[in-house]
Structure formats: structure tokens, C-alpha cells
């Protein structure tokens, strides 16, 4: 198939695959799982024509390992999965973070734990995305709410991963993954595509983990004369293992600071509805679409409601949430889980604004009446 152009009716998972290809992804490794498998199918069909490679690995542990390997060989790489597979990826997600390997992991969330409701949507992997792998680490996760954003945010995920040398999680769900909507595909030439920084020093002077002024080390590829030694053991600038006192502290702090010193480049939120409101909804992903509808419903009942939609989930938009809480009478966090983002909202709630939960755990898009009930509760 040739690349679709202009306005197209498209499934979210297909949009994600095309976003990846347009971002320059040339390697996909994965293991099929509903509701993400169409991403693999498009990659299997399309990547060869771009000189790329698709491989179906024996499991998700192998899938994330393979994309990490291919990225170090110089190819933009990604994988896609859902809950059970995302669980299996956690070990090597940490490897990718620690060894600073740009790559994208798409998680089209479904209801868990275990097999749960395997074909139905949830947003219950928010904390797993943050803390699923062991040890201290930063992570970047962004959450699309439409088919258009499945395309746009996949490109953004690649750009962030290349800029910061970190795996980026595209945290979607079954609704955004498998809904068909019209999207506008831009001319690929008009896209802003970020590429990892390559070393500029001669090969004999190259230290693969010596950071640049922005704390990110320039990255050679396997096969370059610049030798790339990437280790999952505590390492110094040479990349070789190093157990001296202080090395671990220095490395972990740099990994954290390379992200947290540059939040302006990462944090993204959307404001919807009146500037001042009695109740502010905080939501993300597909649930935030329902929130937009609920803003109108509430208005009919005479309640002034607005929405703060989190586009970047991790790092958490602390400041934006804090400011919104300070300006509103009450807050309702609408999410398709038993309450995950709400704990982060409460963490930054320095104004003691009342915070309520609207929890959708029924294996479907959260119903407006669940959110309305929490709003009524909040204004009681």
C-alpha cells in the first residue's frame, strides 16, 4: 500500500504506525496482542518498502530487547503492546533507560490485571508506566486522545526519545487504538523530525557516556569507528562498568536531571472550557474526550466546569495541576482505573482543594454520568 495522504478515515493503531514511519522508524519488533496488533500488521506490511525490518519476536521481553539493540545499531525502533506484554517489557525498559537508548513503546491499554477484559479499554497502567521497572529512573509518557493524536504523538514520542535518549511510552488505550476517525496526514517533508546527536570528536577521543552541555551524551552507532560500550551495570563516561563510590550517584542524578531540567520541552497540557470554574476536571487520553462533553452537560445543570487535560503524563505536570487547583473550587479527576492520577493530583495539592474521583472501570469509555455524579458531589 502507498502512504495515505491528506484527509483519511483511519484506525488509531494504523495512524500510530504511519506516524512512526513518518518519524523515521525503520525497525519494529513485537509480539501480537489485542488491542494493539494492527500496529504490528501495518509495520510488517509497510516497513520493507522503506528499507526497514519487521520481526515477530518470541515474546515481549525479546521484543523490547530487539528494539533496544536495533536503536543502538542506528535505526529508530519501536514496539507496541498491551497490559500483559507491557508487564513483560518492564525489565528491559529499565535497561533502555539506564543505557540511554532512544526508542518508543506503545501501550494500547486494556482492562487488567491478568487477562482482565482483553479487548476493552482501561487507563490502569499509569503507575506501571512510571514505576514498573525496578530502581530509580525517569520516564517520559504521553497520552493521545484521538486518532489524529495517535499519529501526531507517535512522532512526538520519537522526537522526545531522540532528543533525550530515553525510551518514551505512548500511553494509549483500546478506544484511541481501535476507533476510526478522519485524520489529516501532513506532507512528510513538512514534519519536524528530531535526530539523535552524533559524536563530533574523533573516534579515539569518544567517551560514549560523556554528556553534552544538555546532559545527554552524543550517540555513536554500532559499526561506527566510535566505539559504543553500553552497559546495564553501573558505568562511568567510558561506558565500562565502574563501581567507585560516587559513580552511581552521578549517573542516576544525570539521568534524572537530563529530563527534569528540561521540563519546558516535555510538559504539555490542554485547557478546555471557561477560564474560571466551580469544578475543574483533570483527565487524559480517551477519558478526557468524555470530559469535554461533560463540560457542556454540567453547564446545562448550571455548574461551571472546565478541564485540564494532561497530554504528558510523566513527568507529571506538577506546576500546571497545582495552578489549576489553586484557581478552582473543587477538582474531579476522571480516569479509567480505580484512582492513579488522583494520587499525583493530591501530591501537588498545596491549596487543599477538595479532590474527587470519577472512576471508570467497566471495560468501556467512562460514562458521562459517572463524571457528572462526581461533579454534583463536588458542588454539594
Amino acid at each position, binding site marked *: 500500500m502507498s502512504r495515505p495522504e491528506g484527509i483519511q478515515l483511519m484506525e488509531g493503531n494504523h495512524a500510530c504506525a504511519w506516524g512512526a514511519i513518518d518519524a523515521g522508524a525503520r*525497525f519494529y519488533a513485537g509480539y501480537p496482542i489485542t488491542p494493539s496488533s494492527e500496529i504490528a500488521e501495518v509495520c510488517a506490511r509497510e516497513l*520493507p*518498502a522503506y*528499507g526497514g525490518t519487521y520481526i515477530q519476536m518470541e515474546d515481549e521481553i525479546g521484543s523490547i530487547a530487539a528494539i533496544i*539493540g536495533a536503536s543502538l545499531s542506528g535505526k529508530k525502533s519501536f514496539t507496541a503492546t498491551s497490559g500483559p506484554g507491557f508487564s513483560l517489557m518492564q525489565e528491559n525498559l529499565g535497561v533502555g533507560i539506564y543505557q540511554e537508548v532512544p526508542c518508543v513503546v506503545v501501550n494500547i491499554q486494556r482492562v487488567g490485571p491478568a487477562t482482565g477484559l482483553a479487548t476493552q479499554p482501561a487507563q490502569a497502567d499509569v503507575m506501571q508506566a512510571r514505576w514498573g521497572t525496578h530502581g530509580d529512573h525517569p520516564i517520559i509518557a504521553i497520552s493521545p486522545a484521538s486518532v489524529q493524536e495517535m499519529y501526531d504523538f507517535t512522532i512526538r514520542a520519537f522526537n522526545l526519545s531522540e532528543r533525550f535518549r530515553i525510551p518514551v511510552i505512548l500511553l494509549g488505550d483500546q478506544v484511541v487504538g481501535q476507533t476510526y476517525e478522519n485524520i489529516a496526514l501532513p506532507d512528510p517533508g513538512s514534519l519536524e523530525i528530531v535526530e539523535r546527536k552524533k559524536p563530533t570528536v574523533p573516534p579515539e577521543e569518544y567517551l560514549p557516556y560523556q554528556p553534552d552541555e544538555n546532559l545527554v551524551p552524543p550517540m555513536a552507532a554500532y559499526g561506527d569507528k566510535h566505539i559504543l560500550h553500553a552497559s546495564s551495570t553501573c558505568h562511568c563516561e567510558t561506558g565500562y562498568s565502574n563501581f567507585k563510590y560516587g559513580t552511581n550517584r552521578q549517573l542516576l542524578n544525570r539521568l534524572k536531571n537530563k529530563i527534569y531540567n528540561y521540563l519546558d520541552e516535555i510538559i504539555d497540557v490542554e485547557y478546555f472550557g471557561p477560564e474560571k470554574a466551580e469544578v475543574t476536571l483533570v483527565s487524559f487520553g480517551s477519558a478526557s474526550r468524555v470530559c469535554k462533553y461533560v463540560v457542556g452537560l454540567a453547564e446545562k445543570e448550571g455548574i461551571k466546569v472546565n478541564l485540564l487535560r494532561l497530554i504528558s503524563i510523566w513527568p507529571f505536570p506538577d506546576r500546571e495541576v497545582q495552578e489549576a487547583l489553586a484557581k478552582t473550587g473543587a477538582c474531579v479527576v476522571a480516569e479509567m482505573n480505580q484512582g492513579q492520577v488522583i494520587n499525583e493530583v493530591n501530591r501537588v495539592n498545596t491549596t487543599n482543594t477538595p479532590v474527587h474521583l470519577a472512576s471508570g472501570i467497566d471495560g468501556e469509555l467512562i460514562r458521562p454520568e459517572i463524571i457528572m455524579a462526581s461533579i454534583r458531589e463536588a458542588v454539594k
Partner: protein
Amino acid sequence: MAVKLNYREYFKEEALPLMWCAGCGNGILLRAITDALADLEIPPHQVVVSTGIGCWGKADDYMTTHAFHGSHGRALAFATGIKLGNPDLHVIALMGDGDALAIGGNHFIHAARRNIDITAIISNNFTYGMTGGQYSPTTPLSYKTTTSPVGVAEPAFDVCGLAEECGANYVARSTVYHVTQLKRFIAAAIQKKGFNVVEAINTCPTHFGRRNIPGDTVEMMKYIKDIGMPRSRFEKLDEEEKNKYLLTGELVNRERPDFLSVYREINPAASESGRGEGK
């Protein structure tokens, strides 16, 4: 005339002393690999070693080639991506027996089935050296380890038999006692396309030897020397006797097409080294 390469080109001398115990065969195996690379005159930057986690998995600390040291059991999965990301590379996975056959067993059988162009060099010391000598999938039945104090109740994997059955193109077994042979097999495996396995029977005097082989590290080395047997002599043994020995030599050398060759044949555009613009 080009200067002949020496093992020192691949060996990181500043990293000495080796972390391995006195009497451990890992140093011999490392030398055999670096010697083989020098003989083949493959420049270090065209080689990537993907190491497992374990005593043998530390080998990358002493090498000057490109390296990836990832997670326990996953060396082949990382290596698969490394190879497909840049098919011009020589990708060598260095794994212990636990790495390759316990936690990484699934990756091993599928890498062999795909016949992906990777050389797997497995140090088989019959135990988990790094974690203190627990039993592994290659510990011989009834041998003692820290987690089989009265003898292991499970039969051992035949590493080479498994590799052959799953589809590896080249399979050879030698020991760290038979250094010249070991080096020859490693060189052959690196040169050949496809999934190629060299099993190096190795010593672990500290854990395996201490509990099972009476005597010192010299006795451990003798045990290694005697346990290996070439096919000509092995075939003459009766079935019960065969269990006491490990067949050594080049056990498989065939010409199955490797994964990428097949993939490129059926997807002709895929060979344009990632520069294609799509259709």
C-alpha cells in the same frame, strides 16, 4: 602489506586484572575469541559483543569492540535487534549456561529456528557461577550444587543437541583445555552466516569443582579435558557410558539460509539498508 592483527587489538589491557577466580577458564575462552577475531582480521568496530549476566557475561569489560551488556538471559534478543539494525556487523553473543538455556532458553531456540546471523558462544561450567554455584540446566544429573546439596534431580540439557534440533547452521563443542580447537571452532562460527553455536566446556573450580571434583583446579581442568570425546571414540561407547562424556567437535555444519537472506528475498525492497522512501 597490512599489519597482522593481534588479540591485543580486541583485549582491553587496562582493565586487568580479570575479575574471574584463579583457575576459571573464562580467561582462556576470552583469549580464544580475541585470537580468532585477530586471525579473521575483523576490525574491532565491526564487531558487537552482546553479553549476558553472570561471570562469563562480564567478558565485555575486557573487550575493545562495540559491546552491549544487558539483562540476564536476553543477550540473544538484544543481539537480534543489533544484527537487524545493521546487518554488516559481526554480532557475537557471550552467554553462560544459565543465560543461554534457563532464563534465555526461549530466545535460544527461536534464534536457532530463525537461523539469524549471530554467533553464540556459551560458556558451560555446569553451574550458576556468579550467584554462588546453584544448579543450572546443564548440571549433570546427581551432581551437587548449593541448591542441590544431595545431588540435582533434573537431567541436563544437551546444549549442542538442542541447537541442532532447533535449526542452528553450525554447532561445535570444545573445552577450555583444547584451546587450539576451541579457537578454530570460534573462527569458523564467526565466519559462517546463520545462527552458529560454540559450546565451550568450562571450569568453575570455585563452585562446581569444589563440590564435585576431588582435588584442586588442576583436577578440574583434567575433568574438563577428559569429559570431552570426539565422535570417532564416542560412537564406540555403549549408551550408558555415553552419559559420562560430552561429544566434542564440529557437530553440525549445514547451509540453511539465514533469516535476513530469506526476509530480503521475499521483501526485495528491504535490502536497501534503511534508506528506502516507501512506495
